[in-house]
């Protein structure tokens, strides 16, 4: 009886702590959501107002001033295409590293990961000039390629961790039964690692959707994604918090809904190899 009481007490503390932490993490998003329904004057009120008459004027203003669908379309295109392209490159690479490693495989993987350690701004001018010379500034194509490249190390590492969990003997057995490399991949590896591939793809989709640095620096009038739409509502002179909140809600809305439905796969992907 006493043991059960102790257990319940611990459970309550853990539950309360979890909720408190979750609310703390969620608070900025809640604040943004609430602010988006305020007037600019209400948005800057100190202390913050929590009871007020909500207005949709910020959303109307955003619609009037900006072509939301154009930016959203660019976000969808760049994130989906970069994810597909990334998977097409990362899956064979991870397969090679996991099932046919060479002496240098580990070094190559570490080198791939090390490219993520350099600040993006360090590569800005070379990439800007390359894009300019190739006529790719302000193009969806250039963004897709860059998103693919910056996500590739993470994709390869995630898939590698996933493939390493699959016993090599299963693939060998398939080969003994006369399976070609393609058969081996399609009929054995793919079904076994579908969860890992899906979660890798989902994570990269989210990362591409939220990428802002390259979008702000390489696009102007045509290829901007929702990240650039959000950036356009910040102002050094004048009130803008309510409108910025509204456009931020519109920008993160689709990916939050998407993330909500795919959270199980995302968590699985992020915790590969964590319990070894």
């Amino acid at each position, binding site marked *: 009886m006493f043991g059960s009481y102790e257990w319940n007490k611990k459970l309550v503390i853990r539950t309360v702590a979890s909720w408190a932490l979750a609310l703390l993490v969620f608070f900025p998003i809640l604040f943004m959501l609430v602010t988006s329904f305020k007037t600019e004057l209400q948005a800057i009120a100190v202390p913050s107002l929590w009871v007020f008459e909500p207005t949709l004027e910020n959303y109307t203003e955003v619609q009037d001033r900006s072509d939301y669908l154009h930016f959203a379309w660019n976000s969808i295109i760049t994130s989906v295409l970069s994810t597909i392209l990334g998977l097409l490159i990362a899956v064979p690479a991870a397969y090679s590293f996991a099932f046919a490693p060479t002496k240098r495989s580990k070094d190559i993987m570490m080198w791939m990961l090390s490219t993520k350690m350099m600040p993006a701004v360090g590569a800005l001018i070379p990439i*800007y000039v390359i894009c300019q010379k190739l006529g790719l500034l302000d193009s969806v194509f250039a963004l897709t390629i860059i998103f693919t490249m910056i996500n590739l190390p993470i994709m390869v590492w995630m898939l590698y961790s996933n493939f390493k969990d699959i016993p090599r003997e299963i693939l060998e057995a398939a080969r003994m039964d006369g399976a070609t490399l393609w058969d081996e991949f399609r009929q054995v590896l793919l079904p076994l690692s579908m969860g890992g591939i899906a979660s890798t793809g989902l994570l990269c989709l989210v990362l591409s959707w939220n990428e802002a640095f390259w979008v702000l620096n390489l696009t102007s009038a045509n290829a901007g994604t929702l990240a650039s739409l959000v950036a356009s509502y910040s102002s*050094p*002179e004048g009130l803008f918090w309510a409108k910025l909140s509204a456009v931020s809600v519109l920008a993160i809305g689709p990916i939050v809904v998407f993330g909500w439905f795919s959270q199980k796969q995302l968590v699985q992907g992020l915790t590969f190899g964590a319990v070894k």
Partner: protein
Amino acid sequence: MKIKQLAMAVAGALTLSAASIASAETELVIATVNNGHMIEMQKLSSKFEEANPDIKLKWVTLEEGTLRQRVTTDIATKGGQFDIMTIGMYEAPIWGKKGWLKPLEFDASYDVEDILPAVRDGLSADGKLYAAPFYGESSMLMYRKDLADAAGIKFEGRPTWDQVAEAAEKMTDKDNGVYGICLRGKPGWGDNMAFLTTMANSYGAQWFDMDWKPQLTSEPWKNAITDYVDMMTKFGPPGSSANSFNEILALYNEGKCGMWIDATIAASFITDPEQSKVADKVAFAQAPQKATDKGANWLWAWSLAVPESSKKSAEAMKFIEWATSKDYIKMMGEEKGWGKVPTGTRASTYANEDFQKAAVFADAEIAAIKSANPNDSTLNESPYVGVQFAAIPEFQAIGTAVGQQMSAALAGKVSVEEALEAAQKAADREMRRAGYYE
């Protein structure tokens, strides 16, 4: 089957994206900042498109810092991404001299002479105008008339810093959340250093002597920063080291500041009853002086320029002529109200009776702009042009490094002397590296 469908969808998506790019006529891409006047210009620009059906305008709106980085990268690499850039008085003469901007030439009806001389000079290099001002600003003292009257304070013309310090003490009522003075503290060459440079100028300080040696440890700088930190610590709002224009605007509109010295553009916000709780209690005076009134208030103009890399310069000039003309200001006044027209650019705006009636700040603003002279902004002779900055390419890095030190001093993390020593070292290092002296 699924792969085929996916491929078709991808191909369709790319075709649509390509089509949207290919269908334009003469498309002008305009990089601009997100502030009220620019947004109004975007809204009214459909009239320009109606009058010029062969020209289509595309807007890229960015936050000031991002815009500066973006257009600098583009113009330095001749990227050709923009046909019109919104730049300020810092960039225009530097980029003009480098040959990165096309000189602007307008016909007589545009009336270049109507542009305020200080603004025109600040946007020119070697006698050529490189950017046309869309709206200009100086800095001035904005104060709560009700609090000043209650404390028996009268500001006439240009007060002294001693008067301002005394007024700050009398207006402060911390129990009721009212702070005597609110000033910028957020680090950045365009943030705290814009204000602090004008304050230091008025104390007789300068950024560089005639040999380009930094002067940050000089007596006038020490006195100015000591008084600033002292006044803000005693009578300023908490957390001032993180405050810039918008943060103070929010405080002022809530009635928490007795005085505020900042951009004249703020006047239109704090006198607007829709966003300010103290709209009917505001009065204006010139920015304070100490040893001199030279450089006591800054000068800035957001302006439109055509980069050399633009292949559509004729159309770009046509748009700039439209957006910065007297007719645009008149149209704006008639459609949106004379209190909302872009100010600080043309003498004719201030001569307009409708504008004078609508803008209670008009007299103070024009007096501030007229008194600012970028070519003579320091008590002792200086080798640089600019009031709140020195128009040399190295200034952005120096100004930001110095701004961080000043912000640290305001936050109490270092003493004023330590901050100025560190700032001097940073400025000296940068100037040596750039080859101004050995």
